[in-house]
C-alpha cells in the first residue's frame, strides 16, 4: 500500500518536473523584464524557498509515519501518546518565525512599490525635460485606451514607452472593473470607475511585452489584450512625432464609438478632444450626453492619506 502510494505520487509529480525544466522562458512572472517585476520576482522566489522547506518537512514526516506505522503490527504502537508540550511549542514558534521572515520583505516591498523605479536610460526629448512619463489608461468593455497627457496623443490596445524610464500609469475604468496586468514588467492593479489608481512600471530594454485585463468584465474579456512596446529614446521620439504627423485626430464622435462595448484593432490618434481628458465614467458621460451636469462623486472615504500604492491624491 505504501509503495503504491509513493509510486503514484511520483507519477503525479512527473509532468511538473517536465514543466519546471522545460520552459522557464515562457513563464512570464519568473522572467522579469523590469525593476518592478524583478522586485516582485525576488519576493516570490524567497517565499518559494521558505514554502518548499515547509512542504518538505511535512512530506518527510508524513512519509516517515506512514512507512513506520502503516503496518498491521507496527512496533512502537502507543495509544497513550496524546500530546507533547515541547514539540507543540516548537511547531508553534517555527511558523511564527517563518511568518516574520516573510512579512518583513513583504512590507518593505509594499512601500518600495509606491516609489518610481530608478531610471536606467536618458530621457527622450518627447518627455519635455521630465524624468518620467505619465500615461492615462482607461479600460472600456473590451479595449484599452492610452492617453499621453503631455504628448497629447492617444492609442488603443497598445502603448509605446521609452525603455529604462519610469512610467506612471494612471488607471481608470469607463464601465466594468478590469485589471491592468503586464506580467513581465510588474504586478497588476484594478481599474475602477470611481477611483483613479496609480501603477509604476519600467522596462529594462526595448521589446514587446504582453498585457491583458485580468479581471473578468464580460463577453469580450478574453480578447482584452494590449501590447506594451518599450523603445529606445530615439525610437520613442520618432514614434511620437510620426503619430502626431501622420495619424488622424480622435474626434468626439469617434471617441463615442470607442466607448461602445466591442473589441477593436490597435489604433493611434494624433490628438484628442477636451472631453477625453476628463476621464468620465459611463454614468457621467451619459449625464453629459443628456445635457445634465456630471456630478463628479469619487469616494472621499477611501482616500486614506497618500502613502498608499493607489488611492487618489
Amino acid at each position, binding site marked *: 500500500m505504501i509503495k503504491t502510494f509513493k509510486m503514484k505520487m511520483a507519477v503525479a509529480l512527473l509532468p511538473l518536473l517536465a514543466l519546471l525544466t522545460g520552459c522557464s522562458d515562457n513563464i512570464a512572472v519568473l522572467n522579469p523584464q523590469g525593476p518592478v517585476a524583478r522586485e516582485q520576482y525576488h519576493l516570490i522566489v524567497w517565499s518559494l524557498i521558505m514554502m518548499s522547506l515547509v512542504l518538505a518537512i511535512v512530506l518527510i514526516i508524513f512519509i516517515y509515519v506512514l512507512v513506520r506505522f502503516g503496518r498491521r503490527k507496527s512496533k512502537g504502537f502507543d495509544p497513550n501518546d496524546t500530546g507533547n508540550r515541547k514539540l507543540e511549542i516548537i511547531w508553534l514558534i517555527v511558523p511564527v518565525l517563518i511568518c516574520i521572515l516573510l512579512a518583513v520583505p513583504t512590507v518593505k516591498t509594499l512601500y518600495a512599490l509606491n516609489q518610481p523605479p530608478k531610471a536606467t536610460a536618458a530621457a527622450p526629448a518627447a518627455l519635455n525635460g521630465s524624468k518620467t512619463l505619465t500615461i492615462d489608461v482607461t479600460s472600456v468593455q473590451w479595449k484599452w485606451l492610452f492617453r499621453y497627457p503631455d504628448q497629447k496623443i492617444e492609442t488603443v490596445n497598445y502603448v509605446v514607452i521609452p525603455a529604462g524610464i519610469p512610467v506612471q500609469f494612471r488607471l481608470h475604468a469607463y464601465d466594468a472593473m478590469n485589471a491592468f496586468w503586464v506580467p513581465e514588467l510588474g504586478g497588476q492593479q484594478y481599474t475602477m470607475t470611481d477611483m483613479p489608481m496609480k501603477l509604476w512600471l519600467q522596462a529594462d530594454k526595448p521589446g514587446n511585452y504582453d498585457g491583458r485585463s485580468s479581471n473578468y468584465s464580460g463577453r469580450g474579456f478574453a480578447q482584452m489584450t494590449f501590447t506594451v512596446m518599450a523603445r529606445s529614446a530615439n525610437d520613442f521620439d520618432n514614434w511620437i512625432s510620426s503619430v502626431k504627423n501622420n495619424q488622424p485626430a480622435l474626434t468626439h464622435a469617434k471617441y463615442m464609438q470607442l466607448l461602445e462595448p466591442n473589441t477593436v484593432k490597435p489604433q493611434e490618434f494624433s490628438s484628442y478632444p477636451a472631453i477625453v481628458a476628463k476621464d468620465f465614467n459611463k454614468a457621467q458621460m451619459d449625464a453629459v450626453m443628456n445635457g445634465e*451636469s456630471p*456630478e463628479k*462623486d469619487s*469616494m*472621499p*472615504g477611501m482616500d486614506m492619506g497618500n502613502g498608499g500604492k493607489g488611492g487618489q491624491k
Partner: protein
Amino acid sequence: MAESTLSLDAKNRKNLPLEYSTEEGDLRIVGFWMFLAAELVLFGTLFGTYLVLKSHTGGGPTAQDLFKIGPVMAETLVLLVSSFTCGLSTLELRRHNKKGLITWLAVTIILGLVFVGLEANEFYTYVTHEGATLQTSAFLSGFFILLGTHGCHVSLGIVWIAGILIQLARRGITPVTARKAFIVGLYWHFLDVVWIFIFTAVYLTGWVM
C-alpha cells in the same frame, strides 16, 4: 429530544420563571439570543453601508436638507415608550397576570402602529415634497433601506405580537405562551436599541455634520 438534560436539572428548573421552566423554552430563548446576534450583524452591515454612502449624495439632497427634528423626535418617543410598555408586559408575565400581560402587549402594538405610521409619513414627505427617493442617490438608497429594514422589523413584530395575543387569550399563560411572550419582548427591545443607533448615526450626525 427534550429529555437529555431535562432529567438532570428538573429540580432546578422549578425555581425558574415560567418561560424557562421547560427545556424547550430554555433552548428557544437561547436560540433567539443567537438570532439577535445575527440581527446585530445584519443591522451593523446596513449601518456600515449607510455610513460609507452618507456623503455620496450624487447631486441629490443631503441629510441636512431632509431631516426635520419634529417627526423624528415623535417617532423616537413613541418607540421608547412602547419598549417600556413591552417591559411592563414581561413584568405582568412574571406575576402570572394574564389580563395585565394582554393589556400591555396591546398598548405596545398600538404604539408600534403609531411609530410605523409616523415613519411612513416621514418617508412620504421626503418622496413627495423633496423628490428624495430610493433611486435618487446612494445616500438615499442607504437611508431608505436602513430605516425601511427597521420599519419592516417593527411591522413584523406587530403581526407577531397580535398572533401571540390571540394565543394568550385562548390558552392563558402556559409555559409555551409565556416563552412566546418573553421572546417577542426580547425582539421588541432589540428593535428599540437599533432605533437608538439609527437616531444617533443617522439623524443626530445628519443634523450636526
